[in-house]
């Protein structure tokens, strides 16, 4: 029963996503895929920046780890047919395993970055993640096996709207489960007051590291999906600017609000897409929008609230899944 409940969003999601994929003209599909990837990135970053009150600004570094791992595997296995599977199923299975491998590697990087910096209180994480983002970019640029500065091209076109949609559903379910569990309570306490949380018996270091590892892994998923859509994995995709773009989405939506991140990722992606004509002003307008928003609504669109909590107030029969 519980298992069914966990898989229900995916079971419902597949036919709906499939339908959307069938009817979307290409230029709409591009935007939708971008929206999906950005939802994955924003929601996963919110797990750290919103729920634990730490501040990571190197999400793109973990995306890179996931993107390169996934692409390396799919490039190597492009012509491999898994025994006993149809070509289509074989490709999908390889892609899934490559994405999981990417998540494992980016999660491991999250552990390596998080362990030393999350033991300490304060803003070390921001500095360390910023450094990590740059280091991984420079590292990749200098490794021929990873394509150097030009990156990996010819990445197979495996990412579809269905894949991205399922990735987004997985990310959102992960975040919701995390908040509504007892771990969620611990995370909220940490965000509120780390010393007091520790005095309640919360092992703050353990929870911060765990949240950070999970968040990094999902950043890797976003990177892997993006790479197999733009069919190119280069260091330029994963710069500090990309990290800040995701931070902007989290802040705009409200730190600690999953639904806020979903909505702001959607809005900002569509907006950036709409501004494509005015290419050189794009980032300026983006920054301007964030500044205006922060001045008028410093807690972001949603603060720490969730749409589903507001809904459950109007439809009280459904028990509230979580507390903001």
């Amino acid at each position, binding site marked *: 029963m519980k298992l069914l409940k966990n898989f229900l969003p995916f079971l419902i999601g597949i036919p709906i996503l499939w339908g959307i994929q069938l009817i979307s003209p290409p230029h709409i599909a591009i935007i939708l895929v971008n929206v999906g990837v950005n939802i994955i990135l924003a929601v996963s970053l919110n797990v750290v920046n919103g729920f634990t009150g730490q501040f990571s600004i190197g999400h793109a570094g973990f995306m890179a780890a996931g993107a390169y791992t996934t692409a390396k595997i799919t490039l190597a296995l492009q012509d491999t047919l898994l025994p006993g599977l149809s070509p289509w199923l074989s490709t999908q299975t390889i892609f899934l395993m490559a994405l999981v491998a990417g998540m494992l590697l980016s999660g491991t990087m999250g552990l390596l970055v998080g362990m030393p910096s999350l033991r300490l209180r304060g803003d070390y994480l921001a500095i360390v993640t910023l450094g990590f983002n740059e280091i991984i970019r420079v590292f990749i640029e200098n490794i021929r096996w990873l394509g150097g500065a030009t990156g990996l091209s010819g990445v197979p076109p495996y990412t579809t709207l269905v894949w991205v949609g399922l990735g987004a559903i997985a990310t959102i379910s992960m975040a919701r489960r995390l908040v509504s569990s007892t771990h969620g309570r611990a995370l909220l*306490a940490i965000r509120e007051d780390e010393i007091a949380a520790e005095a*309640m018996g919360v092992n703050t270091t353990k929870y911060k590291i765990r949240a950070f590892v999970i968040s990094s892994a999902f950043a890797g998923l976003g990177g892997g999906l993006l790479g197999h859509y733009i069919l190119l994995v280069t260091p330029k995709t994963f710069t500090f600017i990309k990290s800040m773009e995701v931070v902007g989405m989290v802040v705009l939506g409200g730190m600690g609000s999953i639904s806020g991140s979903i909505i702001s990722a959607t809005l900002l992606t569509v907006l950036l897409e709409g501004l494509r004509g005015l290419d050189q002003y794009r980032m300026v307008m983006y920054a301007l929008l964030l500044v205006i928003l922060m001045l008028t609504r410093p807690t972001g669109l949603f603060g720490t609230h969730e749409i589903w909590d507001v809904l459950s107030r109007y439809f009280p029969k459904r028990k509230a899944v979580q507390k903001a």
Partner: protein
Amino acid sequence: MKALLEVQDLDVYYGGIQALRGISLKVPENQIVALIGCNGAGKTTTLRAISGMLKASRGSIRFAGEQIKGLRSHQIVARGMAHAPEGRGIFLNLTVGENLELGAYLRKDRESVAKDLETGYRLFPILFERKSQIAGTLSGGEQQMLSVARALMSRPKLLLLDEPSLGLAPQVVEKIFSVLKDIHKTGITLLLVEQNAHKALRIAHHAYVLETGSVVMQGTGAELLASPEVRKAYLGD
């Protein structure tokens, strides 16, 4: 008598400044022990070092027979010590109820947690009335009560209280002290830091006087209440 808590030769530094100079004290089981002293004497620092919020550079802290110096506070809570800190340390953006639930964070026995929640609300009925209110909007005195009630939710053997009567109206102070006596009657040992030396010495079995990071005097509550030095320095005679 068996000491539940035994602190020996504790030194604590804040950077280069030494705040505690070889503090030693004992808290016997089922007693109320008070720590009094002027502002800056090191009372808060002592409690924070005991509950693991601060690192002591020298000395020993034994709790229920076990050396706990060097453990982190979440590990010390798990061993049965709760700390209602100075400045209350409550979660200002969470509700009263959520604060209390977090106090029972480590406990798995949901039924007895619910019972203790009831007990907490009985000790402080105002908290029951305000249970869905955001803790940051409580009055200072109510926040103080919440802090004490929340510390009790972990079902501690030893409760450290840092100035529970700070800034409260006289009737509320009375109320807090009578609740402290009730808490003690349920078998919880108390280590109490107070500016209100008079009240603290009246309910304490034993008390220590701190001055610039050292214990300068100790005795039963009654002895210290009668001592001319204490009367002059702390009771305003």
